[in-house]
């Protein structure tokens, strides 16, 4: 599935719920289901700043594709980061850098988050893009 298709899928999943409380319940479910990150990555080095809750995000490259894992001490935050992982993990840095984030607006997540949480979401996206940029640079053969 392309990034776009995954985003579309998430939009459809969220459209089932009218009440925001139900959307949160779904985010909590996703958060609880997020595969555990390797404990060795739960260090300050992988901590994303700008969140009221703590979020650790780890990225590595396998066969040219970025693999993301994450954890948070807050389960709703975990649910949000799990959406990002689902959308971006398994794609090339180029695909990630080209992707737009419109789906977050469409599902209403951005406008519905508290200002601190919206900041946190912004920081997570920034960090993912930063990883993608670094991997892209590393992959490009140095020119003379």
């Amino acid at each position, binding site marked *: 599935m392309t990034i776009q298709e995954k985003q579309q899928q998430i939009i459809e999943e969220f459209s089932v719920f009218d009440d925001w409380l139900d959307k*949160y319940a779904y985010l*909590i479910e996703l958060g609880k289901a997020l595969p555990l990150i390797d404990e060795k990555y739960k260090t300050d080095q992988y901590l994303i700043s700008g969140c*009221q*809750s703590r979020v650790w995000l780890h990225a590595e490259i396998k066969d040219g594709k970025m693999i993301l894992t994450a954890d948070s001490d*807050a*389960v*709703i*935050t975990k649910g949000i980061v799990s959406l990002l992982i689902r959308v971006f993990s398994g794609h090339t840095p180029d695909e990630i850098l080209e992707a737009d984030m419109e789906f977050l607006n469409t599902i209403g997540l951005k406008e519905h988050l*508290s200002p*601190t949480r919206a900041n946190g979401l912004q920081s997570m996206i920034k960090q993912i893009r930063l990883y993608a940029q670094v991997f892209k640079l590393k992959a490009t053969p140095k020119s003379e």
Partner: protein
Amino acid sequence: MALNIEQIRKDFPILSRKVNGKPLVYLDNAATTQKPVGVMERITRYYSEENSNVHRGVHRLSQVATEEFEEARRYIAGFIGAGKPEEIVFTRGTTESVNFIATVFQQFIGAGDEILITAMEHHSNLVPWQQLCRRQNAAMKVVPVNERGELDMESFKNLITSKTKMVAVAHVSNVLGTINPVEKITGLAHDKGVPVLVDGAQAIAHLPVDVRRTDCDFYAFSAHKAYGPMGIGVLYGKEEWLNKLSPYQFGGEMVDQVGFKETTFNVLPFKFEAGTPDVCGALAMETALKYIEKNGIENIRQHEDELLEYATRELKKLRGIKIIGEAAEKTAVLSFVAGGVHPYDLGTLVDQMGVAVRTGHHCAQPLVERFGLSGTVRASFGIYNTFEEVDIFIRAVRQALDMLR
């Protein structure tokens, strides 16, 4: 006298709005209180009928504005039991009041001197002193807090020494609700000749404040936590202290004679009020404090105490709840954590149910860490909160915990 809360609620238009499709239950009064319609009308009236610059115009409007502004100062002085209106300096709020003193006090602080604060201070009564100590090579000492959230007064006695140059203490903790024994603290400090600054941000709308009885040297508070507008507050200072201190900021209004070589400064309180003051803010603050007076601070206190007692009892019935701050003397601030649940998640979900609480470290990071936490959920009550709202709050917490666990 019991307050008619239903009637009081009608004075606060915002309370009838909905949030996330649910009736608003506003329990974030320690962050800021809502404003009664009288305060809003005062603001409108000032700008519709009275707006003019103070202390300088010869014209009628300027006279009116000046008289009203100085009348507000007199009223506020009386409200907190100050001896003279000159002891009331208008500032932008508690934070500026503390920064003001921490800045101008520099002349009295040398290397090796000490400033004594407590472990329950808000960042705004901590960082200004810390930075002062850093500039002057002085040391900041901290009075510890016990498990119940009370000051360790034995430590306080030991920590106040001949090196201590200032004691800075919150009247009421914004996280724990603890009411500190400021009268006793002032007595002990004065025995050693040390002045005391009291941060009254969390007290002014909830307790009778009497600066002369407390005998503190400085008292700081903000209007917006006492049903008044944002952006204005007060620094009370004893006249003898204010006369000793150099100006904090320079500009118009605060001067006497200005020349290119030398300038002499105005008398109190104008020496400390450089530039055009927030006249409208001062008038609206006066209106807000009169609103408190009309209802009676003791009546407000009793109502809020009853809410706190009820909310605490009901909250404790829920599984895995730990109350942070169980001092014998408390205002209606209820901080808690729920086992296995992040405060942020809990706060987010109860917000979805229309209940406004605060989560996090509440700008008192060292205090929250002292309890081994990174944050709490805090519900804080005001004059207009009801027992039904406590019920809604408890139900919301219960439902959120069910979702999160």
